[in-house]
């Protein structure tokens, strides 16, 4: 009987501690990184697509993997051409 009580006294705080730790894991609060749904491009009406449109070109680059990966600070390190530099007040 004493052993059972001791078991509960140890198991219950351990369970509470585990659940608390899970709830405060920073990863729980991070947005899941979405991957581009490139399959949706195949379902688009290709006859209405303008391949010279920058939106279309950007989607193609993203889905063909030319956009490469994101850096840890959330800004990409794309291989795409660097835009011209501007400095403003």
């Amino acid at each position, binding site marked *: 009987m004493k052993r059972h009580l001791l078991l509960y006294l140890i198991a219950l705080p351990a369970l509470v501690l585990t659940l608390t730790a899970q709830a405060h894991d920073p990863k729980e609060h991070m*947005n899941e*990184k*979405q*991957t*581009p*749904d*490139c399959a*949706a*491009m195949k*379902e*688009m009406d290709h006859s209405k697509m303008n391949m010279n449109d*920058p*939106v279309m*070109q*950007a*989607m193609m*680059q*993203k*889905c063909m*993997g030319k*956009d*490469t*990966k*994101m850096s840890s600070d*959330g*800004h*990409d390190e*794309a291989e*795409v*051409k*660097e*835009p*011209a*530099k*501007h*400095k*403003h*007040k």
Partner: protein
Amino acid sequence: MVSFGFVRCIKCLSVAAGLMVLTGIAFIYSGLYPMGADNQHTKLTFWVLETLRERSISRAAQDIEVPLDLDTPARLLRGGSDYAAMCASCHLAPDKNETDFTKGLYPKPPNLTMTHLDHGDPKDQDKQYFWIIKHGIKGSGMPAWGPGHTDEQIWNLVAFLKRLPELTPAQYQILTANVPE
């Protein structure tokens, strides 16, 4: 006699102005003005604040030089991922009409997927978008993104905003999604 009347008039006006100032100060200290975001401004207050905001931004942004290469895939991709991370919770995505933020924010943030602010010349609109993103707007939920972001990153956002209203949900998803590592 004319000068005596004039002096009396000046005195009356000064007393009236003094009373108005004192009344204003008394009102401020009374705590009677409702500050809750769920209590909307009167039409007059709204007009004053909106006109003040629009004129101030228009003047401050007039000398900004707009890059010639805004409409490029590179800028759209970079601006897209930043928009999803920094802006979409308030300014929405093509498949969303509201979020928890938009329900409670006052003034309500503009839905940038639906309309552009009416600034006439598109170049003026680009300048004003850039200025607003960089400097934010006092007394609203719009923060200044200038600290921590380069001008190039802000121009990328402007480039994305220009095309956002015409994006379908599928196009938006692809442009804003991150490529897995």
